[in-house]
């Protein structure tokens, strides 16, 4: 059901929501969080709402979309409420803000937040320079950005590093989870040797590739090298160098990867690129600050640039293998639950 409320106020929206709940029974009960999506009006807002609706099947939430319209227009608030089949397991309130109001999104969002539950802000396209200082960002415990969706992804990632605050997260990081899990489990097997070098290859404008290299730099205490791939999508290859042989994970086509490591036959692994809805559902699972992401961001500057080359990195040029104490602080096993 879609209800349009042109030229309205938040109290009218609220009373309409309460009335819907009275009429429709429990349709708006049991929400676990409020998700605020911030876009410019006319951007692919509906794609973002669809992703949120899908994620809401796992995390029933109230979705508030703040679509900022023309600044020159007369100040006006147009609202649309979507519930039931049009909103997945959530209820969606789309707020279109015009004129001066466009800058005052936070004041329109505030009265619609669910009581006593977490607030998550998501900028599916362009994010503010400092999400935690943004008025809407300040309402939220968790702020999700997507460096890959911005005009200059690598620059955006750099800005995330410069303005990081606990609670920030970026979908470029979420897209790495499968890669990271695969690499971590490859090191669970013998030979139990220190990794002495790490090469990461990916598309030139793939922020995930940079982050993966940074994460490896942070965890392995080596300076990972980042190579630009000439073909392939996103991340293309990771090579972890060890005295007895390399662990090599290659995904040339963006779908199926191949994992090769000494003492093991080479095997195919499903590593398809993750959809936004997948990533969003993962983000909503954890609402506490992601310290591992923060550590990876901090290590971005330590990643070395590798020279452009074809898919297979030959034992590359000068290797500034930074020797340092190995990560003795690393606990044995991640206690993450199944299902994450």
């Amino acid at each position: 059901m879609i209800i349009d409320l042109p030229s309205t106020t938040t109290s009218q929206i609220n009373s309409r929501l309460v009335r819907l709940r009275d009429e429709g029974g429990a349709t708006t009960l049991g929400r676990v969080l409020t998700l605020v999506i911030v876009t410019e009006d006319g951007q692919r807002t509906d794609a973002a709402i669809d992703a949120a609706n899908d994620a809401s099947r796992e995390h029933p939430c109230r979705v508030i979309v703040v679509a900022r319209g023309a600044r020159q227009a007369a100040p006006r608030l147009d609202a649309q409420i979507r519930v039931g089949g049009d909103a997945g397991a959530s209820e969606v309130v789309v707020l279109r803000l015009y004129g001066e109001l466009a800058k005052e999104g936070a004041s329109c969002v505030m009265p619609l937040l669910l009581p006593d539950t977490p607030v998550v802000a998501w900028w599916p396209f362009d994010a503010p320079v400092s999400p935690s200082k943004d008025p809407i960002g300040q309402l939220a415990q968790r702020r999700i950005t997507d460096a890959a969706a911005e005009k200059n992804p690598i620059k955006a990632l750099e800005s995330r590093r410069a303005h990081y605050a606990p609670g920030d997260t970026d979908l470029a990081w979420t897209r790495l989870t499968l890669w990271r899990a695969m690499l971590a489990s490859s090191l669970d097997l013998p030979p139990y040797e220190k990794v002495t070098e790490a090469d990461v290859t990916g598309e030139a404008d793939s922020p995930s590739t940079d982050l993966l290299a940074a994460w490896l730099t942070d965890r392995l205490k080596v300076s990972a090298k980042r190579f630009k791939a000439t073909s392939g999508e996103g991340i293309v290859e990771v090579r972890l160098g060890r005295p007895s042989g390399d662990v090599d994970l290659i995904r040339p086509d963006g779908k199926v990867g191949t994992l090769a490591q000494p003492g093991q036959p080479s095997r195919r692994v499903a590593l398809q690129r993750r959809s936004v809805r997948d990533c969003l559902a993962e983000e909503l699972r954890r609402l506490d600050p992601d310290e591992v992401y923060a550590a990876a961001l901090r290590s971005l500057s330590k990643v070395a640039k590798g020279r452009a080359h074809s898919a297979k990195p030959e034992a590359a040029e000068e290797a500034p293998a930074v020797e340092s104490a190995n990560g003795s602080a690393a606990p044995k096993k991640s206690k993450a639950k199944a299902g994450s």
Partner: protein
Amino acid sequence: MTTSAKWHNPLRDARDKRMPRIAGPSALVIFGVTGDLSRKKLMPAIYDLANRGLLPPGFGLVGFARRDWADQDFMKVVHDAVKEHARTPFNEAVWQQLAEGIRFVQGTFDDDQSFDNLASCLAQLDAERGTGGNHAFYLSIPPGAFPTVVNQLKRAGLAQTAPDQWRRVVIEKPFGHDLKSAKELNKTVNEVFPEESVFRIDHYLGKETVQNILALRFANQLYEPIWNSNYVDHVQITMAEDIGLGGRAGYYDGIGATRDVIQNHLLQLLALIAMEEPVSFKPADLRAEKVKILSATRPAQPFEETTSRGQYTGGWQGGQKVLGLLEEGGFSPESKTETFGAITCEVNTRRWAGVPFYLRTGKRLGRRVTEVAVVFKRAPHLPFDDTATEELGQNALVVRVQPDEGVTIRFGSKVPGNTMEVRDVTMDFGYGHSFTESSPEAYERLLLDVLLGEPSLFPKNDEVELSWEILDPILDFWARKDEPALEKYKAGTWGPPSADAMTARTGRHWRRP
């Protein structure tokens, strides 16, 4: 070279909560692979795990059965089972990756050659797929065949491990049919596999709601103060099914509802509801508390009044004409097998003294439901007119295990109007409302736990034996005295009259779930 015990994987970090637990290199061998459970639950669960990226890249799946199949035929069976029953969408890339590790071994349990073939098949998988000599054997077979299979595994050298390898065996209920047979079964299995590598599947323990009982009780401040005999009047644990036993005579005749369900599922639920707070959630600590509470649990006497059993008769149920048990194919027309069983337990601890725990289960009951209801005492004084609280029942906290997983609290509320009238209302928490709609299937969780070697959700041999110690006196009594009589109940009702009598004798009554 350091060993695995000393190795700290630098890429793992306890703070990294996103990182999923991926099973290490391993192969799963399923005996009885042509069975229903295997097709409807195990194979789809394996695919779902693979689809969620939780299986290792070189996972091997080996089917063992009498059928004259080649690997491709078996692969086709798995493929169809996955397409039909998997929870997550079908993804060709994931399937291809999984299919590469699928093998089939044709053979019978008493044939040495078959098990030698299995051994060489597994050796080949280790070499080709890197399964690392880690093998789990899933015995989806009648318990009578356990000794043969287990000893064959031993003979073929499949039970011995080299360092840094593991062998695990997964078995399903029934874990014996009384204390003696359970002990024998444990002995047979433990002779070949040490207890820490035996995983007894009780799929109820893999359900989110059952694990949530621990969160509900031990993560909240709200419930613990009233979780004792000062406030709790009694506890009802129900597992009802609306289906009959057509086609399951071979397994069920002579076993009956009490052995089939109360011994494992319901007594495990009782343990989780009644146990004290574990020191930690480590498997050994959790188990210590379960063992403690089970060893304090006794069946309440006299059995002719505190127990009930029944057998369903045919009739109309939910718009369908259904057969009675005695008409179902495979059952003897004189069968004395009960399809409904109810017992009363007392838990002799300070916390629970005087609180009866009613456990009931049955086939062809009103609807399919599993729930635990903690029913509280009435308020000691009600400052209302008698008429105001006429319709007020007892407060209750209900854990709905399936379907519609969640928690319900029942309490009194004023009926709108200008008179003071109080009536029961409910406050609902639905898992499906507040969390994922598609929470993992119990088998997914349990299979993953087997491959990870995480034993918390699997009952151990002493828990099984303690459950039989609780049940054996009742089963003996029923066999000896034939009291209370095996009563008939109509399909689609909530059991025989003696079930109501056993609660009514102390002024209580069953909830209609």
